[in-house]
């Protein structure tokens, strides 16, 4: 390979870095069996993080654009037609070679391929599918492949993509249709959701047909689909954003919704804000998304009592809920059901399970909590155990919010000004 590969890599990796959905998801287990050709495996869990960049993100996949030439002009996008960025385009063979050689050196779990739109959506999508097909069929590559599909490419190509990819995704880009129309004039919400609906249908169909057809149908995107939306480029509030997520999870059974705090890009469109959205907002949205999916919270509970339907930036959404619902506390960890234990600030799913397992054999004391290394200062007002109850006025105190205000945490996000 010559150095033009290096230049392409520079341009096309740089162009892909604004995509938040970098992690490889779970798509079952897979590997070359004894006597079979091929390289690679899926371990069954989420993908391995082979490195971490200084922005704290996990490097799991070779995440590149096939090309950053684009006929569309989406304002938030560094690669929009009217931008002055350097352009490049990988050939099918170049992407295949890079993926395999990175994989053999244990740098990556697989490929995350996205692309600008050249000539036509179908033309672009067809080249992307060829890359995935070559990896799978010419090289028997068993590693992870995530394709970011082009929403208005033909259904046949979407379907073919699903045969080779472990996960497919289509970005909704903006949390509202109005936002999409303003910022991505060539993209249409109904095309995006239409494509999501079709993928969901295919994924479900594949899963169901296992049981009654004699022959197992070919794999179809076993890792499901995900999407991403940009947060903070317009004035959409958190309730609307999370509402969109809930509806996407429900309607299309998405595995993940990624939130990407708007970050200034070189040569930006003039309709974009100049300042980055606070990273802590992105973080709060992920926390809220987690509460919705794994902690049995609903949208109204999370946003009830917030100002302008925005999540509190100072407190994580669970603590914020607890501070607003003090009448629900203290929770007795020796008798409470799991639902309520999960609502205690500072107790996660694992801890809750541990508590339930221990209390079968002995009654929990304060000492046990200390040994589990729980954040005791955070827990103190909200729980009781055999030998501990919060002092009667602690929960009612006006200073409780002050006490609970994190002092360290902001440092984590401090650099993003």
């Amino acid at each position, binding site marked *: *390979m010559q150095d033009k590969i*290096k230049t392409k*890599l*520079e*341009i096309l*990796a*740089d162009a*892909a*870095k604004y995509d938040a959905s970098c992690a490889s998801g779970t798509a079952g287990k897979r*590997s*070359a069996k*004894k006597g079979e*050709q091929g*390289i*690679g*495996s899926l*371990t069954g869990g989420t993908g*391995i*993080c*082979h*490195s*971490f*960049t*200084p*922005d*704290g*993100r*996990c*490097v799991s996949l*070779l*995440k*590149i654009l096939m090309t950053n030439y684009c006929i569309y002009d989406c304002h938030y996008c560094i690669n929009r037609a009217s931008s002055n960025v350097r352009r490049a385009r990988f050939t099918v063979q170049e992407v295949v070679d890079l993926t395999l*050689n*990175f994989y*053999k*050196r*244990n*740098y990556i779990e697989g490929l995350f391929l996205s692309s600008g739109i050249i000539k036509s959506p179908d033309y672009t999508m067809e080249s992307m599918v060829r890359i995935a097909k070559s990896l799978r069929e010419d090289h028997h590559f068993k590693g992870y492949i995530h394709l970011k599909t082009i929403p208005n490419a033909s259904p046949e190509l979407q379907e073919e993509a699903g045969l080779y990819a472990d996960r497919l995704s289509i970005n909704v880009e903006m949390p509202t249709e109005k936002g999409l129309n303003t910022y991505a004039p060539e993209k249409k919400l109904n095309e995006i959701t239409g494509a999501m609906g079709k993928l969901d249908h295919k994924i479900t169909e594949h899963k169901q047909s296992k049981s009654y057809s004699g022959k197992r149908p070919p794999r179809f995107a076993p890792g499901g689909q995900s999407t991403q939306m940009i947060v903070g480029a317009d004035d959409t509030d958190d309730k609307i954003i999370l509402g969109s997520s809930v509806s996407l999870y429900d309607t299309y059974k998405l595995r993940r919704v990624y939130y990407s705090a708007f*970050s*200034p*890009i*070189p*040569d930006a469109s*003039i309709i*974009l804000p*100049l300042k*980055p959205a606070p*990273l802590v907002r992105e973080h709060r949205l992920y926390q809220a998304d987690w509460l919705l999916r794994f902690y049995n919270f609903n949208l109204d509970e999370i946003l009830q009592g917030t100002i302008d339907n925005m999540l509190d930036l100072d407190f994580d959404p669970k603590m914020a809920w607890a501070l607003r619902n003090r009448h629900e506390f203290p929770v007795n960890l020796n008798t409470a059901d799991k639902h309520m234990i999960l609502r205690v600030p500072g107790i996660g799913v694992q801890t809750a399970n*541990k508590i339930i*397992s*221990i209390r*079968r*054999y002995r009654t929990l004391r304060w*000492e*046990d909590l200390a040994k*589990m290394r729980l954040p005791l200062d955070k827990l103190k007002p909200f729980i009781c155990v055999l030998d501990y109850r919060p002092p009667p006025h602690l929960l009612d105190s006006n200073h409780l919010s002050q006490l609970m205000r994190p002092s360290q945490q902001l440092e*984590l*996000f401090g*650099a*993003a000004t």
Partner: protein
Amino acid sequence: MINIMIDTCPGFDQWRDAARRCILNDIPPDQILWKTPDQAQDSLFTAADELPPDTPDEFSVSKDFIDLAETVMCHSDNARFDILYRLLWRIRHDNKNLLKIKTDSDVMAATKMVKAVRRDAYKITAFLRFREIELDGREHYIAWYEPDHYILQRAIGFFKTRFRNMNWSILTPYLSAHWNGQSVYFDSTPDKSLLPEQDDFEDYWLTYYASIFNPARPKKKAMLTQMPKKYWKNMPETRLIPDLLKTAEARTKEMIKKSGGGV
């Protein structure tokens, strides 16, 4: 007091045999000193005693305990022998559900070791880097890795599965493993000089790593939690980190200036 020498590494089978004899001969934990060869220079060292006699009696322990012991045994702390024996003793004499009491001090000590071993066995699958050489006219991939614990055998399955049709060697300070596509050969005298100085694709990898870093949001602490500095020396891309961090702010300002310039 009885001195027991474990001279294999990590030493599970030897420990299990000794522990079985000690339990059947009713020797309490505080009557045993577990020794390894590296303590030989130790002034407190006394010669190893003969193991207590084997007896035909048998006893069983739960699978949970065996799983725990196998994992704890990979830990580099020699206290592992003692902790495991004490647990075994207490499970037999005090409480057969001891392992369920997650806040018991011995259980916690063992659990902490399990976590360290698991993490270490995971990190090798993540942070190990192969370099390519030609050996007997075939591609051969070589890696040098320095684990905290004795985890190479534990982690080897991952590499066998993932890189089944490649030939490779993994070298660590205490053990090396060589795979020829069929079987694995372990060697307890690893030779680091087998590792080539460079690899043709490393430069592309560094280019990729530098290009996906977003200078607008450096989070050094988050990176260090996941990838502490002790791993850096065998990961080629980490040599870029100081410079990426140093120039991040200037690059971001430049970007904002440029994007604001047109307004």
